[in-house]
């Protein structure tokens, strides 16, 4: 040999090479993240469950176990059925509305046209602006005295100043406003999700379907929709999880009012647990969200699995 290999350094001890084992190395790298999440997500989740089974309040922090009595109290509260119903109306109403608007928007934006980039940047604003700030702007738009909608109604002589709607003061209108604001917030997300799905459908699949004689509707509902379904489902799961548990819109727009008309689970849990300091009942209210979330998570898992096969 023209070059002579230098002798290999012999290991001093096995410990030296512990970090060279892939499993050890990978475990060390994920450890900080996993520990952080376990301590500040896993542990609180267990605590929430425990609080809901105890008589804990911030004034009397006992750990006394009271079984399911908190849950029974919550269910027997006369306003609870309405809160529960509101949560479902809020979630599914706004998601459905958002999806429908989003689908049309996506079809419009699919086609290239001059200025599409700017239009897209403007259209995604509702999803991009912090929801709390957007809600405040909507509150101003729905103001009882200076609402721009009411001004327009009067200016167009559709209504008289005397009988314009009090948007946030009428129960059913207030609920409608909350739903609309959330739909408004999520429709750009739906557009972007649909666009991501539609652009991922290979053109040759669509061409092949056209050649095979599939018309516009058949192409849409039998070819394209099934192909983008997984992507849309994941978007929808996101929307449902974050809407179902949201409290910021209700908190900033109506404070659950008028007379509980817009109270949702997240808000009720906040009101009881934080404002009134009744941690155990607040936790019990929040935990009513868990079953729905679990169903969503199971769906999510199925989609992720299917993707990887």
């Amino acid at each position, binding site marked *: *040999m*023209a*070059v*002579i*290999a*230098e*002798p*290999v*350094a*012999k*290991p001093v001890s*096995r410990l030296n*090479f512990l970090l*060279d084992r892939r499993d050890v190395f990978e475990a060390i790298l994920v450890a900080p993240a996993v520990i952080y999440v376990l301590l500040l997500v896993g542990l609180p989740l267990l605590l929430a469950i425990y609080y809901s089974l105890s008589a804990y309040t911030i004034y009397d922090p006992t750990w006394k176990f009271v079984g399911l009595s908190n849950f029974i109290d919550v269910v027997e509260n006369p306003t609870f059925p309405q809160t529960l119903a509101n949560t479902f109306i809020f979630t599914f109403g706004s998601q459905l509305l958002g999806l429908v608007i989003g689908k049309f928007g996506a079809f419009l934006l699919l086609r290239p046209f001059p200025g599409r980039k700017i239009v897209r940047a403007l259209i995604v604003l509702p999803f991009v602006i912090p929801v709390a700030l957007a809600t405040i702007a909507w509150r101003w738009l729905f103001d009882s005295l200076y609402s721009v909608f009411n001004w327009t109604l009067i200016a167009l002589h559709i209504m008289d100043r005397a009988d314009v709607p009090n948007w946030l003061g009428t129960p059913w209108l207030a609920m409608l406003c909350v739903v609309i604001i959330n739909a408004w917030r999520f429709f750009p997300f739906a557009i972007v999700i649909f666009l991501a799905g539609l652009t991922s459908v290979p053109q040759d699949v669509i061409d092949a379907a056209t050649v095979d004689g599939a018309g516009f509707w058949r192409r849409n509902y039998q070819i394209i929709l099934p192909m983008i379904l997984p992507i849309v489902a994941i978007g929808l799961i996101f929307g449902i999880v974050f809407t179902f548990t949201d409290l910021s819109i209700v908190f900033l727009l109506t404070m659950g009012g008028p007379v509980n008309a817009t109270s949702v689970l997240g808000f009720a849990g906040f009101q009881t647990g934080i404002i009134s300091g009744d941690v155990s009942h607040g936790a019990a209210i929040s935990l009513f969200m868990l079953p729905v979330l679990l169903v969503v998570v199971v769906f999510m898992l199925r989609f992720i699995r299917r993707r990887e096969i």
Partner: protein
Amino acid sequence: MSAVIARDIVKKFAEVPAVNGISLSIPDGEFMVLLGPSGCGKTTFLRIICGLEQQTSGDLMIGGAIVNELPPRARGVAMMFQSYGLYPHYTVRNNIAFPLKTQRVPREKINKQVEWASQLLGIDHLLDRRPRQLSGGERQRVALARALVREPTALLLDEPLSNLDAKLRTMARQEIKNFQQRVGLTTIYVTHDQVEAMGMGDRIAVIDHGNIRQVGTPTEIYNDPADLFVATFVGSPPMNIVTHSGGGYLGFRPENFLPKNMIEDGAATEFKFRVDRSEYLGAERIVYGVLDGFESKQIITAKLPPAHVDEKNIRPGEWHTFAVKNSELRQFDKNGNRATSH
């Protein structure tokens, strides 16, 4: 002394063996080729040698020491990857210097070594470029220089030519072989291309389904295949195999399967051969057909020097008497292994 010794190496991925008990001893300075079809476990075996995979069982010795427990950096082998694995964010100079830097070699020594390696491969004018500014052939040389620079105990190459176009490939083959002979570096070269294997290897290990079927010089592999797999994997067109009356198999190379009148002397075995089709390839003529009285799974081929065999003499549909010298006949038993005597 042997640079690399593998003893009964087994590697299972989720209970499925990729390497199924390979034992191999590679002497210092040898150019060893691992040849086998795609998916037979060549890459896995190579990755076990350099330590990127841990074998399920078996022992590995490099430079005389057992290295089963050692991480790659303590094994002193170099590897050249299929798509070279150059560091895109480093210049060529830093790419080549990298293996020395990790060993904390002093600066002047590094410069000297980089100089040496880059001159050896004729890339000293490229030292300040980045990998993406290089052509395929240049990238390959940089990868080689990087593998060499720290004077490894053994150099491992995983299908290094598969990313080059056909023309460059022949040249690069020559270059690698030349340079290996000059430096005398122990080299383990993986390929699925038998032409590369035959042309470059001092010895060839033929692998199938994670097992070594035969180890030998290119001549041994070609002339005395150890079993039917080797016989049919090496050679193009492959060796003709027909069932033997005694329950085994008979094999003969297409170039030894000639019209009877072309066999001048010595004992020969005759066959009735029906020509189905023939192809003129310039330097030779390939004739396809079937034999009378012998079973075979494939079409029988004969490779004839065209000067001797005019198209007029061999026409589709005709029956001819062909023969093989007895010394060129290979016998295999029922299990496909080479029968010892012939």
